[in-house]
């Protein structure tokens, strides 16, 4: 590039010229989307094993709540999905260096991550919080009854601080045992070294499924901290970030309108609902402005289902995690799941 500065200048001026074009012209395509389409696969980063959110099924395919959002985005872009297992330390560098196009790996959105790591968070897909798992034979209904109990907690987590704060602000007596490794923590809890253990509810509910008899352990209703989990894209390609965001919103809108994976094709063809007609590309030009073809939302919902289906399939009461919708119910059912209008 350095040898031909005029090429760069030309490209810049072309870009400006394109931006200045009137709105009815096809707007510039997202470079990330362009490279995904030309390669034919979406690279989506997930954790290697996180029950409910991303695990391997019997056939060696990744399944889970996060994986379903990867699937929806891949289907919207009409490409194959390639799941890339990453560790917590690898994930942000992998995203920023474009080894993966997006992450869907139970990442908590925080201000420092927003500004410090070059990340762009998609809408929150799961409102998590810190909670407690205890034995059902302790016969307690609320975490406030845990006064004097021994709680196991993982070292170096925000949970460790939240735990002390919460017990102090509720004037409860706390005995905490701080473990450096999660395996040791779970083993100690199983051996009854502690009465309860604490952590992100999604995480601890998943870990509970690994116990000898998961039914003997319950998740207490109290949520003592905010942990909004969201997929992430890299900063610098707003269009791509918006495509990911609106694919997630599409699953939420589909839930509102009772459109499921089974009936989405029918709905796309016949529905008279104006918002669905816009979503499924039957009216308006939103898909073209996004740089997608009109059927993108139909494919996304057909591949992954609507938000309720994704939730119930992976985390809901019929799964080993047995999570209630709680904060993750739709906004009109007392939850926080709220998609902006598709118009």
């Amino acid at each position, binding site marked *: 590039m350095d040898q031909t500065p005029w090429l760069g200048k030309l490209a810049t001026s072309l870009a400006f010229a394109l931006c200045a074009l009137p709105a009815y012209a096809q707007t510039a395509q997202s470079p990330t989307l362009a490279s995904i389409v030309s390669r034919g696969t979406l690279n989506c980063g997930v954790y290697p094993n996180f029950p409910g959110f991303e695990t391997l099924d019997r056939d060696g395919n990744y399944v889970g709540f996060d994986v379903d959002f990867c699937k929806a985005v891949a289907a919207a872009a009409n490409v194959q999905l390639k799941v890339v297992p990453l560790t917590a330390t690898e994930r942000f560098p992998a995203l920023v260096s474009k080894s993966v196009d997006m992450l869907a790996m139970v990442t908590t959105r925080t201000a420092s991550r927003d500004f410090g790591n070059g990340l762009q968070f998609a809408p929150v897909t799961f409102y998590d919080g810190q909670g407690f798992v205890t034995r059902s034979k*302790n016969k307690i209904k609320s975490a406030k009854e*845990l*006064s*004097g*109990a*021994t709680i*196991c*907690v993982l*070292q*170096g*987590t925000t949970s*460790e*601080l939240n*735990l*002390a*704060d919460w017990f*102090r602000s509720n004037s409860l007596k*706390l*005995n*905490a*045992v*701080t*473990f*450096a*490794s999660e395996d*040791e*923590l779970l*083993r*100690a809890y199983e*051996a*009854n*070294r502690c*009465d309860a253990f604490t952590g992100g509810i999604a995480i601890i509910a998943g870990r509970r499924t690994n116990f000898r008899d998961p039914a003997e352990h319950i998740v207490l209703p109290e949520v003592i901290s905010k942990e909004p989990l969201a997929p992430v894209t890299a900063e610098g390609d707003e269009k791509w970030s918006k495509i990911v965001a609106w694919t997630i919103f599409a699953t939420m809108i589909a839930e509102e309108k009772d459109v499921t994976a089974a009936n989405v094709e029918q709905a796309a063809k016949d529905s008279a609902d104006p918002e669905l007609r816009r979503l499924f590309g039957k009216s308006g030009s939103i898909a073209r402005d996004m740089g997608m073809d009109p059927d993108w939302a139909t494919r996304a919902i057909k591949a992954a289902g609507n938000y309720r289906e994704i939730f119930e399939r992976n985390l809901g009461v019929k799964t080993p995690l047995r999570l209630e919708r709680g904060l993750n119910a739709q906004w009109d059912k007392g939850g926080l799941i709220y998609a902006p209008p598709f118009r």
Partner: protein
Amino acid sequence: MYLRRNPVVRASVYQAAAILAVGWLAYTGLRNALDNLAARGISTGFRFLVNEAGFVISETPPIPRQLGWVACAVGAAALLIAAAYLGKRFSWLRPFAPSKRLSLVLSLAVIAVALAQVEWTRYQPTGSYLDALLTGLSNTITVALLGCVCATVIGFVMGIFQLSTNWLLRNSARAATELCRDVPLLVHVMFWYAMILNFFPPVREYASVLGLVHICNRGLYLPAITDFKIDQITTLLVTGGAVVALAAAVFGRTKLSLILALLASAVLISTASWDFPELQGFNIVGGVAIRPEFAALLFGLLAYHSAFIADIVVSGIKSVPIGQIEAAYSLGLRRLPALRLVVIPQALRVVVPPLSLQYLGLAKNTSIGVAIAFPDLVGVSRTVLYQTGQAIEVMLLVMVFYLAVSFSIALATNMFNQTVQVKGW
């Protein structure tokens, strides 16, 4: 030309160059680290130490509240001892330097006075990061001291058993030593932890001895003395009397002192206010608890290090010429007096130097406690590091603390070593 050939000049030039190079390396390393931290917007310095820690530590032994005085006392003690050592080395310092014995006595006295004078407190989540680190240090020192004492006793007994004439005793001691020595320390510690958690009953089904001592997999709960109904001076006098009488009973072996010691203890016990442990809600409360993490770490360290100490003791005893033992027997000494008066004093000359290495190893190996949730110095420092992000400062502090612990052990064992070596050599 002449200067270049002068060995003194050459040596100084080379040494100066080496010192400069090392100094430059250290300086650039530090400079780089500081620059990088500044570039990443990470603040440096030790100011964070006074901030509220906010996390819970499961084991909180007393820590001194007025740190300044303790630091001054430790500094003064270190200066005294350094002066004694330097006085031996540099003739011009000799008139000012105290003798080693004097400096030791003085420094111990200074530290004892400081520790007696300061107020003691226990860590709370509202305490500072420094308090948290000191709690970790205190836990480390507790395990290290207890470990060294117990490992020495067990090691000596096992070592002497290994040389016993009784076939069963000799071979079982050998087998036990071999087994313990050949398993890594981490495995020892995790084994004992798993044993304690799974062997002892859960807290609701705790076992009890006479209704006073409770045991379950959350700990061994003993009744604790909270106060004495007699005034403080009398308590101190009676306690002191009991200790002296007990010491006299052990070393002088007179029946009278044993009776006196028992009497004094009886007085103390009868006038004490007790705090008995009992099950309340989720846990056994009251009394003092020995927690499974502490016990597992101690057992692991003991199993591992006493095996090595047993081997050291065996080598020490075997180093005593057989003629010495035969001579002792021919003087009419029985087996035990011969061991105590002839063999062990000579064996100690061989035993003490490697023994001090075991002590150092044991003190540092307490950091294995991280694996089983024991809040030792390393365990607590990891939390502090995660919560503050001040990696370099926290690690530096931890290193300084370990250095102080190791240096104290080395000093004590060196001094002891000088008393057992052959005089005048």
